[in-house]
């Protein structure tokens, strides 16, 4: 069953149409890779899903519930906050909070939302201990158990990105989005991040991964979407799109990658 349906999304900045009628769906437990050259609208698409941008047209349906439809009455701030939590986001440039330790980065959102519940007041320490334990577990899962109390500037890029992944996972989103998670890393550090994402795929985490790592997309994703100029040119099973692309533009794009 499709956990996510994206229908006819369009987005325009000024006079440039960045997304033109983008539709796709994603099944629970599947990983979808989005490939395409720079400027094709991949980041904008992820930002629309996370409500960092408002699509001009189209709708977004998660678990059968339509969480967004363009042109409908504006949602309240609290509704927006709720709907956002269907998605998690891992940014290309990590965006960890520099003033907090790795553990606090992972647990901050959870703690702030716990503080809003009246029942937290009475046994705040207990609640926070639980949240911390869960945060440590996540960091351990990312291979960072010994880095929990380090600040971001004390961590390598690969470690920072793994903290960012733990932070996104902490709120247990239905769908986890990655925007070129290894593009800001030195080549020798991409492996450790890809390994973590591969592990998540093996655990059937529902994911959308924008990436330029073609071999990784082929091996880890279930489906691949190839975008060009704001439209989806081709989509299909991962292996098929990479090894046997049907569209000329996909072939041209992939051949540029295999040469490079």
């Amino acid at each position, binding site marked *: 069953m499709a956990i996510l349906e994206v229908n006819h999304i369009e987005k325009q900045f000024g006079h440039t149409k960045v997304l033109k009628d983008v539709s796709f769906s994603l099944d629970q437990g599947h990983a979808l890779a989005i490939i395409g050259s720079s400027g094709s609208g991949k980041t904008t698409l992820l930002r629309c899903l*996370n409500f*960092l941008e408002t699509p001009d047209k189209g709708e977004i349906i998660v678990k059968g519930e339509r969480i967004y439809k363009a042109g409908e009455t504006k949602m309240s701030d609290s509704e927006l*906050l709720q709907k956002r939590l269907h998605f998690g*986001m891992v*940014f290309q440039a990590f965006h960890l*909070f520099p*003033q907090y330790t790795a553990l606090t980065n992972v647990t901050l*959102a959870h703690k702030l939302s716990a503080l809003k519940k009246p029942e937290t007041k009475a046994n705040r320490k207990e609640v926070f201990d639980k949240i911390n334990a869960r945060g440590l577990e996540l960091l351990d899962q990312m291979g960072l158990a010994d880095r929990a109390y380090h*600040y971001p*500037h004390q961590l390598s890029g690969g470690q920072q990105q793994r903290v960012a992944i733990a932070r996104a996972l902490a709120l247990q989103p239905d769908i986890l989005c990655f925007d070129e998670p290894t593009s800001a890393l030195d080549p020798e550090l991409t492996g450790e991040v890809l390994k973590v994402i591969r592990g998540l795929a093996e655990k059937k985490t529902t994911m959308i991964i924008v990436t330029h790592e073609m071999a990784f997309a082929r091996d880890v994703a279930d489906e691949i979407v190839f975008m060009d100029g704001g439209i989806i040119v081709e989509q299909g099973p991962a292996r098929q799109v990479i090894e046997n692309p049907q569209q000329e533009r996909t072939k041209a794009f992939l051949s540029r990658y295999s040469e490079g």
Partner: protein
Amino acid sequence: MLWSVTVQLLGGLWTTFRIFIFTLLFSLPIGLVLGIASRSKFKLLRSILHIFIWIIRGTPLMLQLIIIFYGPGLWLGHNIWSGNEAGRITATVVAFTINYSCYFSVIFRGGIESVPVGQREAGEVLGLTKWEIFWNITLLQMIKRIVPPMSNEIITLVKDTSLARIIAAYELTFSGYSFMKSAGITWPLFYTGVFYLIFVGVLTILFNLIEKKLDYFK
């Protein structure tokens, strides 16, 4: 002699200190509001603020002080500042507050803009409210970046208080100068300098402490 000079300088220091503290008390929050407002979506508001800030930063504080103190009396026909010491200090604080709010607003705006958008967005996708993002994420990063320019400006304020002499407020410099005028001795002027150095020294130590405290992150 030393004793009577000290007593008189301490009196001047007290006035200097009151001008300093009240100016800070008013101009820091007003500066923050102006700094936020100068990034407003409304072009008219932005333009008005930019012009106002340009005028205030582009003209001497002493000129502004003279206009604020004498202007109302000449325009309205009666002095809105009472003629006593308190009135002079009030006028000084008003002029200084207008001036320093503008300088602080520029620093605040720079601080706000220096925090990368990605920080706010990372908070948004975690479902934090605008207020939670400001309070838990942006604020400390902003403070860290504005401490050095702020401390410069605040130390300048200490020395700018001596401008109040122009409207005959008995601040520290006025006190030191009065001995030269009345008794023809100059050493109280150097002694006055020592008072300023101690004042500024204490502030410098304080700001260094804050900077050290915020050194733990980048």
